[in-house]
């Protein structure tokens, strides 16, 4: 049974069909890619599946549960994590706080625990901080734990976002252009990180990327989205040689 199945999902924005009859199946642990030119609707697909938008038509089934139209926090709590193309950190909160808040649903101590520092609170806090530090270590940013997000270099901010998403213990992770704005060195590091988290947690990953090289190296299956419609789906090799993809996505110069 696939971990995530999307059936004939469509979205109308006013009179415009932004996404048309989109289908997707991801097996547990599979790495998939979603490519397409700017404005093709890739991020919209993420927003639909994660509940930011409600699809006009279609069904989304995650882990055997129908999640179509549920509120984003419920969908997230089923094990669907996500990062954003534009960094979305909480500017004045520390790196550690980011990864702690991601474990919100595991914090069970209430007012009394918080105000009087009960042993229950101390135990929970210790467990949550341990977990947070282990994720920060994995990302190589544990030395920045007490820094405010605002002060971090760009590459480190990306890693915080990744650590935060992992702290929610997702079964599937949606990465929206995780290397946007990175130089080649940072890009190589990010690819290594994605490989590492995939190996370590056995996560399924759905990757939106502009850099074809990255998609081709990481993904088992790649979909190409153009004007809200999937025009091709297959292995990286098949996609690279598909004339429709070359025409629509790579442009004519790729043919030369």
């Amino acid at each position, binding site marked *: 049974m696939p971990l995530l199945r999307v059936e004939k999902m469509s979205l109308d924005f006013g009179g415009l069909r932004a996404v048309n009859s989109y289908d997707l199946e991801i097996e547990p642990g599979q790495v998939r890619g979603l490519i397409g030119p700017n404005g093709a609707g890739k991020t919209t697909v993420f927003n639909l599946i994660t509940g930011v938008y409600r699809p006009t038509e279609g069904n989304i089934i995650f882990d055997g549960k129908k999640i179509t139209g549920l509120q984003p*926090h419920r969908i*997230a709590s089923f094990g669907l994590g*996500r990062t954003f193309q534009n960094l979305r950190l*909480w500017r*004045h909160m520390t790196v550690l*706080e980011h990864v702690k808040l991601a474990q*919100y649903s595991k914090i069970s101590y209430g007012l009394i625990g*918080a105000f009087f520092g009960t042993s229950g609170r101390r135990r929970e806090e210790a467990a949550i901080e341990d977990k947070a530090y282990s994720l920060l270590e994995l990302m190589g940013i544990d030395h920045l734990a007490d820094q405010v997000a605002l002060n971090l270099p760009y590459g480190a901010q990306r890693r915080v976002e990744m650590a935060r998403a992992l702290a929610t213990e997702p079964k599937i992770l949606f990465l929206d252009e995780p290397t946007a704005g990175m130089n080649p060195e940072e890009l190589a590091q990010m690819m290594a990180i994605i490989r590492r988290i995939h190996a370590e947690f056995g996560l399924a990953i759905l990757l939106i990327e502009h850099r074809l090289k990255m998609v081709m190296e990481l993904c088992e299956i790649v979909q190409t989205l153009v004007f809200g419609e999937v025009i091709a789906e297959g292995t990286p090799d098949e996609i690279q040689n598909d004339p429709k993809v070359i025409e629509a996505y790579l442009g004519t110069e790729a043919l030369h």
Partner: protein
Amino acid sequence: MAFFFQNLVNALQWGSFYALIALGYSMVYGVLMLFNFAHGDIFMVGAYIGFGVASGLVALTSTGAVALPNWSILMLTIIVSMFLTAFVGMIVERIGYRPLRDAPRASAAITGLMIGIILETGNLALLGARRVRFPSLIESTTYNIGGVFVTNKKIMIVVVSLLLMFALNQFVRRTKWGMAMRAMAFDYVVVPLMGVSTNTIAALTFALGSALAAAAGILFGLAYPVLDPYMGIVFGWKAFVAAILGGRGSILGATLAGFLLGFIEIFVAMIFPSTLRDLIAYSIILLILTFKPHGFFGEPYSARLRL
């Protein structure tokens, strides 16, 4: 010198009211990017709920059904009224603001003003156009400390206010809800991805702000026992000024600016004729804002997406 300290004590009490109310404005703005313009009227509702609860408890005690000392009636009144008013605040959020999350900001501002009018006139319809007297729950005792007269009520008002502000600070720092509130202030879009319901946090923010306004209302009723349905308007606007002066969304800022406003008003009245008090006090604040347009702890950005 004693004259100066006398005014200082008065200013502390006066500033407590402003600070408690300003906190509600600032928190709601910080989390939801909207100013709840009905907040002054929530203060009024809180005072009236306090009046109702206190009168009820006093009546109950006088029938002999229960024997409650006056101090415990007061504490009970504060706690029960804070809960009830928090509930009112949550209803206001649910009915007035939640449907407008994605609407233009002006819609939310107008809604706030309308809710305010509804609360004022609703009160009028319910209790009639007469002022009510807040029961004097504790005997006033005056202490003379080196020529400065301090009443037990004043001490209690300032102490309870400071305790509540400390509790709020702890709540925001130490609980998961507080952490989620702070996160929403910086970027609310990602907050649901952490499994946090932003609706719950929004309702909680309104509840906390309203509870503090209720406490301010009751403490105000103790010091100035005559309540009327429009008592929240001017007071609310002034507390709003304090919230702006402190820096939108800043808890520390709202607290300090609330007290500062109390000090400025009292000390202006100490020097100038009291009819000129607001004119001069708010000219001073205008001047401060000219040089610090974002307030003491505000951030110079306005591009956040929320209402």
